[in-house]
């Protein structure tokens, strides 16, 4: 969900197949075990997602 609206609905197991940029963006922000120690990416909140 983004700003009170559903942007995408998926089976939890298929989360990596998310198509919507907001869903993909959120997944990108998560740290991973064994991942890099560089600063994590965060979302550039595009206003268009709420429309």
């Amino acid at each position, binding site marked *: 969900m983004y700003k009170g609206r559903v942007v995408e609905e998926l089976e939890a197991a298929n989360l990596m197949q998310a198509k919507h940029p907001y869903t993909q963006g959120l997944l990108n*922000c*998560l740290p*991973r075990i*064994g*991942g890099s*120690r560089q600063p994590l990416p*965060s*979302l550039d*909140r595009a206003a268009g997602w709420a429309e």
Partner: protein
Amino acid sequence: MNLIEIDNLSVTFDTSDRVVRAVQGVSLSVARRESYGLVGESGSGKSTILRAICGLAPISGGTIRINGKPVPTPRGRAFSAQVQMVFQDPYASLHPRHTIDRTLSEPLAIHGLGNTDARVVKALTDVGLPPAFRFRFPHQLSGGQRQRVAIARALMLEPEILLLDEPTSALDASVQAETLNLLNRLRAERGLTFLMVSHDLAVIDHMCDRVLVMQHGRAVEELTREALAGAKMTTDYARTLFEASADRMLG
């Protein structure tokens, strides 16, 4: 010498109906400038360890030393200038009817530190918030902004040690990322030492050099970051936590 040394710590809550052994004989030590994690299932005693350090949980056995000295009871001012805690829920930990300005200036007043205005403005800027936020109340901020205020408050007295109890578990993935980045930057800039609780192994892996896996109030296994990333755990319980880690499902 280690900055934090916990030796054989036990915490027992004697409630009216039962006795809860929340922490049983846990030992750990954290070097200066190290970041050390605590993970484990709900109720395993992680928060109780942080609370015991701050004098907020009854120690029934063992010792806690900071910089080689046993912690005093009550903890007192010198302790709060050295050790500060950040809680999971910034809404509950900030006074709802105090402005951010009052929240941030209070520790200065208690410790008789002057130059309040400049320090408050700098504290907000350091955590990436506009100085004008000092005139707001907690409910006028987002969850991530409130957690930044809680971090700013913890840093007002320039402590060496931050105890972080699930500081991002109330935040969405993007705001979590921003908050973890902020904490890492502050640790590097100020040479801070972290003792951090999380239920999320990937967060611990990103933030910590070593991690202690806990279960039922006991220490199960200590892992370096390399051992965690290489799945080199030796106990079944640590392996179960690792295999169940959400980030592994993401591929």
